[in-house]
């Protein structure tokens, strides 16, 4: 049994029906644990004060904003190479989730930056990159909604996703070059000691797990919605054609 079995919409729906309830529960549990622990039971940072609590929102959402795009890129490649409809629809389903994550990362980043940098917005390379990512997401969603035929919409958005990825990486370098930033380095890496102290690290892990599961749950559910929408379209087209 290969993973491609689930490229069949019916099988995919059956699987997602089985997985989804557990996924919702896990994601909300992880989010609750991570955020409550982080919000109520962690000390303030000696330098950043209580704003350090924003880390439990900012870091996971920023992570998912990028991962969502990466997932869309992989799904687009699978569609272009193997032409599995579920893959294309999953990419479509992930885009609005990615937009929400990017939006959260931008808002929390700006709110965090306000006391630290003394201004709501600075054209810091990381913030700027996320803004550009946001534009890419919007263009991607707009293109999906502008093309009527679902297959050519999938084709075109997949190409946009691939070319956009290249330019997003280019933009990242360009932006770095353009303004050496105020932003601190990545908050989370494998050697946690150098970055975030333990007290902050553990709730952060829960929060990240929560965001990951929430993303998966949302994408699975939304993909199911897209599959049903597509099935409805196919049924109606058949009815018209053979009336």
């Amino acid at each position, binding site marked *: 049994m290969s993973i491609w079995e689930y490229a069949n919409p019916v099988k995919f729906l059956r699987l997602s029906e089985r997985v989804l309830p557990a996924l919702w529960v896990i994601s909300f549990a992880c989010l609750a644990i991570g955020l409550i622990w982080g*919000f*109520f039971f962690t000390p*303030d940072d000696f330098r950043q004060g209580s704003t350090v609590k*924003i880390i439990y929102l900012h870091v996971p959402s920023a992570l998912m904003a990028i991962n969502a795009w990466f997932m869309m890129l992989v799904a687009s490649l699978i569609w272009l190479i193997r032409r599995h409809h579920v893959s294309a629809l999953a990419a479509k389903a992930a885009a609005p989730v990615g937009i*929400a994550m990017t939006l*959260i990362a931008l808002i929390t980043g700006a709110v965090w930056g306000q006391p630290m940098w003394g201004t709501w917005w600075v054209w810091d390379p990381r913030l700027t990159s996320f803004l550009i990512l946001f534009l890419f997401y919007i263009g991607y969603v707009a293109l999906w909604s502008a093309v009527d035929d679902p297959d050519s919409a999938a084709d075109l958005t997949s190409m946009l996703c691939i070319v956009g990825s290249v330019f997003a990486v280019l933009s990242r370098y360009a932006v770095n070059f353009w303004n050496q930033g105020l932003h601190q380095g990545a908050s989370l890496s494998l050697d946690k000691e150098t970055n975030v102290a333990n007290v902050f690290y553990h709730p952060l892990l829960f929060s990240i797990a929560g965001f990951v599961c929430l993303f998966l749950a949302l994408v699975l559910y*939304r993909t*199911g*919605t897209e599959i049903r929408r597509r099935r*409805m379209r196919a049924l109606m087209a058949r009815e018209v054609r053979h009336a």
Partner: protein
Amino acid sequence: MPDLGKYAAEVLSAYGATCVVLCVLVAATLWQGRKVRAELAQVEKNQDGKGAQDG
């Protein structure tokens, strides 16, 4: 409620905004999902009915 010190407004607004965005996203997702499910069920019912009449 922990003491958030002088940054209370920032921290709370960050949590509030995130909550709003996530709730809107989840609500929209579920609402769309329900709607499409219902519509699809309707279409399937119609076609089955017609199929029965034809044959």
